[in-house]
């Protein structure tokens, strides 16, 4: 909830820049991992399925950040 409201506040201020993008994508990863581990309940599920789900919240934000980084340089 705090992370979502922080994201909303950044949106309200219309902030931009690589650090802001990095921070916002970090909140995506943190929220995503919380959902995967605690809501879906994959925390103690070993193997492919948990890794694939975590891959989504780590790899996709990583690619998005790379895209924004390449655009900004």
């Amino acid at each position, binding site marked *: 909830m705090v992370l979502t409201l922080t994201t909303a506040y950044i949106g309200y201020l219309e902030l931009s820049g690589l650090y802001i993008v990095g921070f916002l994508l970090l909140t995506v990863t943190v929220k995503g991992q919380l959902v995967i581990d605690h809501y879906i309940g994959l925390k103690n599920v070993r193997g492919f399925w948990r890794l694939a789900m975590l891959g989504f919240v780590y790899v996709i934000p990583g690619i998005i950040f790379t*895209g924004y980084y390449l655009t900004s340089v």
Partner: protein
Amino acid sequence: MSQSAMSESAAQPIIEKKSIEKEPLPGDLAIWFVIMAEMLVFGVFFIVYVVVRSNNVELFNEYQLELHRIGGVINTIVLITSSYFVALGIYEIRKGNIQRTGNLLLLALLMGAIFVGVKIWEYSFVFGAGIHLSTNTFYTFYISLTFFHFMHVLLGMVILTIIYIRLRQDKYSAESHQDIETGASYWHMVDLLWIVLFPLVYIIR
């Protein structure tokens, strides 16, 4: 090595093995293939968005500011809360609390209905302003991504409603509730997709 030390060292791996014991995947295995396929499609969609944006930065930044961010924030909070209710529902059904599980599923559905209401309200502004899929590249992505996700929310609500009806017909118990876990996993995926989609389309610039 003394006998007590030997038995201690033999006991150690057993304890470690127990601590990393696997838990079963929640829900039906088939839904996990569906979830993976959906996430792959959305993942590709997100990457294409970033690639296309890199060639139209000014356009994307300009039109992104026209979106109803407050609607997006409300929908994020609503969807995460809904997911939380569903997770609590799973916790309750495992304890055999049918009544509480039903109430939590109803609350989750209510949150889903709020999401749908806010989204329709948001679309009414967009389409009311004469904006459509081919207005510009940004709106092509905004409308396709959010509408595709919106369809998943509707499907998730249908699944939760069916589960709720079956729960009220005493079809589930603490021992037998795989359908609920299956539906819950799908609903959490819908939440997870929105967690990425919202900042990407509405906030990050």
